[in-house]
């Protein structure tokens, strides 16, 4: 499924957050969106998934969802958004409970994704008993259980420590290579963007405009720090002045 953004602008009252964004997320690609804090990355992601109505412009989907998809456009959240009173399996079940799905099929799907993410032994654990990394794995399992056509990831690793982040990047990449689900990955971490994405969309400071669209022309298996260094350098040069300015702004 493709996602087409046409001339989207958004503001909260007098505050302009996004200005005239047009882009297309192609079938089967990971598009990373980076930019200084407060540039409207998360606002844009909210608009892409129908959780925010843009002030201007529109978003279109093109193509059909895969067989058995229950929620074509599905989020993975920065703060995991797990129901703390539900177990791991219960949190995955939450995404399936209001669908036309027999109890047996639901159980089968839960079991399948928990096994895939390595959470089977933790099925009855409560979120508070889990580390941050495990909590985000639950978030990923919940998203996969509905078999999405498009994944929207809102800084999914920002709340995790550096080592856990590294482990989860690799796991996510392995999962993605198996499914090749279209994905939009919002982050402020250049390395995450370069490791995962096919293209990196750089947003400017508020109001967010598309500054440039950078194709990551290194095969995913060859993305060593050395190979990515020139691209990283280029992206950093593109955003550093604005990142510095954004840092010194009142929020």
């Amino acid at each position, binding site marked *: 499924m493709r996602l087409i953004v046409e001339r989207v602008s958004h503001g909260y009252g007098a505050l302009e957050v996004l200005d005239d964004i047009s882009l297309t997320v192609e079938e089967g690609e990971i598009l990373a969106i980076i930019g200084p804090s407060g540039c409207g990355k998360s606002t844009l992601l909210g608009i892409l*998934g*129908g*959780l925010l109505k843009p002030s201007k412009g529109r978003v279109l989907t093109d193509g059909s969802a895969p067989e058995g998809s229950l*929620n074509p*456009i*599905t*989020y993975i*959240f920065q*703060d995991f*958004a797990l*129901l*703390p*009173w*539900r177990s791991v399996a219960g949190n995955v079940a*939450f*995404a399936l*409970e*209001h669908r036309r799905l027999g109890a047996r099929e639901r159980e089968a799907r839960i079991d399948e994704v928990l096994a895939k993410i390595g959470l089977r032994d933790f099925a009855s654990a*409560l*979120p*508070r008993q889990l580390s941050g990394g495990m909590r985000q794995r639950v978030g990923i399992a919940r998203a996969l259980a*509905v078999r999405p056509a498009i994944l929207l990831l809102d800084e999914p690793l920002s709340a995790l420590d550096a080592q856990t982040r590294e482990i989860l990047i690799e796991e996510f990449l392995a999962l993605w290579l198996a499914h090749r689900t279209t994905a939009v990955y919002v982050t402020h971490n250049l390395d995450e963007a370069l490791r995962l994405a096919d293209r990196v969309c750089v947003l400017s400071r508020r109001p967010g405009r598309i500054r440039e669209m950078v194709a990551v022309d290194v095969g995913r298996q060859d993305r060593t720090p050395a190979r990515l260094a020139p691209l990283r350098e280029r992206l950093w040069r593109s955003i550093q002045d604005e990142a510095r300015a954004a840092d010194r702004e009142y929020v």
Partner: protein
Amino acid sequence: MSEPLRFRGGGFVTRPKPISSCLAGLAVVAIWQAVASAGWVSPVFLPSPAGIARALAEMALSGQLWRHLAASLQRILLGFALGSAAGLAFGLALGLLSHARAAGLPIVSALFPIPKIALLPLFILWFGIGEPSKVATIALGVFFPMAIATYSGVDQVPRTLIRMAQSFDVPTHAVVAKVILPGALPGILSGVRISASIALILVVAAEMIGAEFGVGAFILTAGNLMRTEDLLAGVCLLSILGLAVGFLVSLAERRLLAWR
């Protein structure tokens, strides 16, 4: 020259000291009993703990205790059930609906601070001196704290959980039942704790204004007859009642909020 590093303090962390708790309680009763036994104070002004215990036992044996307790409990339960059900529904509306919040919150905030016992004379005019006026006073006293606790409980449910549910196209009624209500439960239960103690205050006050039976009526009658032992036996009963309610709420919190 080496020196051992000086410990500079542990941040005033408190630890449970159960023996001190028991000793303090025993000491208060023992001193009280000693003062009363020594005959320094007239038993009309300060009866001994043993005397109060005797009065309590006599009340229990004669069946008076149960009659008064039953009358009070009935009023509390009925008033609490009515007031908390209405408060829960109203608080949920305040928390969820912008219009209800805009219209209702100023009104609730204005009426909340009124001591509800001040309205008992009005309710007696409306409903007569019998049960309905007492139950209405308790229900109204319970309604406001429950409405406000529910409202702030709903307000404290993390927005991102609601957005998550909406991002999975969960229908609105299920978002309320499965995300908002469980998320607001800590606030609702603290509302139950506050309003239960308010119900206890109001039932005693209402019974002192006009009732044949009830712990409040019993205490007032004992005072008028200068039967101080009975009076304090009634007060002990209220203390036990308050502790029992607090224990029940804590039990509910432990069972229902185990996920925290």
